[in-house]
């Protein structure tokens, strides 16, 4: 196609135009790649460190390339490192985290989506107040509410259990997810809902068949956020679960956060990267659904 075009015009005219286009693209790729390099710098440090034997690190080689490469740290982090007196590595804690994160993400995203839908497409008097109330919950300093939350969980009979943790994450997660969805839905044309109403669709049907399919990008955003927050949460995990119920972050903390012991930097780095794998997978898989223009052509005007 580009060739066909080029044939039509004199070469001297085609050339500068081409280079100008290149230059334009350069302006886009340049910053993107520079930024990517900067962003990857700490990762590089981590990878390199995780491949070094511990002695090499302690002999002063922090950032440089490893002299000997070993995967011991990765193995240790996965299945050998001691989390307290149980030397199981991170492996068993993954299951806990998954059991917690999946229901919590699904529930909080689902509830947030439906709240956002109500707050934009089914506005009732006081809807903005409700939104404001939910929103303010985003700013709650969690350190301050651990004790009443522990009491509440105790009363609900959820203390020390994974369902209890799911409850906490959902309760605070909906503040964020509602925000995301509400702010995405305000820019969806109201005509869509109207048309569906006339077609005979009810409250839930419209949500499910018309609104949700157009909100894939924000579902992705919400899932990414919730997954990251919940997966990486330490505070609630450490406060509301114990021992073998603990999520992965508590185990990771136990690998990493030694005070009077010797830090095993290589294992720490490997463990951190292993712990991040599910989240990264979510980013990559969910990222595919960052699709363009889902509302394009829906309405005119």
């Amino acid at each position: 196609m580009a060739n066909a075009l080029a044939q039509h015009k004199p070469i001297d005219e085609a050339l500068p135009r081409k280079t100008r286009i290149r230059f334009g693209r350069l302006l886009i790729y340049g910053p993107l790649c520079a930024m990517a390099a900067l962003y990857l710098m700490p990762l590089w440090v981590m990878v390199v460190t995780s491949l070094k034997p511990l002695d090499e690190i302690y002999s002063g080689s922090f950032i440089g390339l490893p002299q000997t490469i070993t995967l011991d740290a990765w193995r240790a982090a996965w299945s050998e490192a001691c989390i307290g007196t149980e030397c199981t590595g991170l492996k068993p804690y993954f299951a806990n985290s998954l059991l917690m994160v999946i229901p919590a993400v699904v529930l909080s995203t689902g509830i947030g989506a439906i709240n956002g839908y109500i707050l934009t497409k089914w506005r009732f008097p006081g809807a903005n107040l409700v939104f404001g109330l939910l929103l303010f919950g985003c700013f709650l300093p969690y350190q301050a509410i651990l004790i009443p939350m522990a009491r509440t969980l105790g009363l609900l009979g959820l203390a020390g259990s994974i369902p209890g943790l799911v409850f906490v994450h959902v309760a605070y997660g909906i503040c964020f997810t509602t925000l995301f969805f509400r702010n995405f839905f305000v820019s969806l044309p109201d005509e869509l809902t109207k048309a569906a109403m006339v077609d005979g669709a009810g409250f839930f049907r419209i949500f499910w068949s018309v609104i949700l399919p157009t909100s894939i990008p924000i579902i992705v955003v919400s899932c990414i956020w919730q997954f990251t927050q919940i997966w990486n949460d330490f505070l609630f995990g450490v406060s509301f679960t114990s021992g073998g119920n603990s999520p992965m972050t508590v185990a990771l903390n136990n690998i990493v956060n030694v005070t009077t012991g010797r830090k095993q930097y290589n294992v720490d780095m490997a463990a951190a990267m292993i712990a991040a794998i599910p989240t990264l997978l979510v980013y990559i898989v969910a990222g595919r659904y960052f699709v363009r223009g889902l509302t394009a052509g829906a309405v005119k005007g």
Partner: protein
Amino acid sequence: MNAAKSFSSRLAGWLPRIVVAPSLLVVIVTVYLFILWTGVISFTSSRFVPVYDFAGLEQYVRLWATPRWHTAVANLFIFSALFLFLSTGIGLLMAILLDQNIRAEGFLRAVYLYPMALSFIVTGTAWKWIMNPGLGIQKVINELGWTSFTFDWITDPNMAIYTVVIAGVWQSSGFAMAIFLAGLRGIDNSVIKAAQIEGAGLPLIYRQIIIPMLRPAMLSVIVLLSYIAIKSFDLVLALTNAGPGSATELPSTFMFSATFRRNQMGVGAASAVMMLMTVAAIIVPYLYSELRERNNG
């Protein structure tokens, strides 16, 4: 029959309210009731565990007489302002660049997002090394021959807070990017086309048409980043451990150490109340204007 109909249709009218009600209820309990509890505690003499006496404003007086708290508040403003500005700016820029129909978008997006996936307990160490003048950037650049180059903010109590900003922006701007990108993906192209026709170049189109249309996304980003700024905890702890000295103390670290390390639960509660009040003072007017605007928009 008629009455039943009207009941069911009235029910349908109430349905939205019924559906949000549980969320609202949960939030009222877990947010507002708990805030109330914190508020109550801040007026008691609680130290190690909650006690329910009345100590008046004693804890607030104590709080404001603590130099660390002053540092924390000052840092919060420096940190939040810079962090918000830079993360929003960089996030928006990256989203816009990524939206130019480029190759490897998926890869780049993952690269910008990955810092969020990594627990800062560990990445803090990497940053510590990178910013340590004897190990990281400064050393590398000095060794490359530019010997006068210094980058030792992390050792300087006056500059250390900026290193926290750098690490914070690194960690969070990716998510701002994601929200903006989702917003951009929702915009109808025909509007952009119209602006192109009118002679607007891309920068102008973004400034005048697209970014205004991203206002709701911007609200999400601002709320989110403020949340991150206010609660930055791991970040500070892992990178500087609130040091050097207490130069990078933030309200969140202050609150934690007051409550769990110093046995000053009352002071911790008072600091939480102060934080919430600050947030409310800034966010509520903003929200008000934002929502009112939307209402008739």
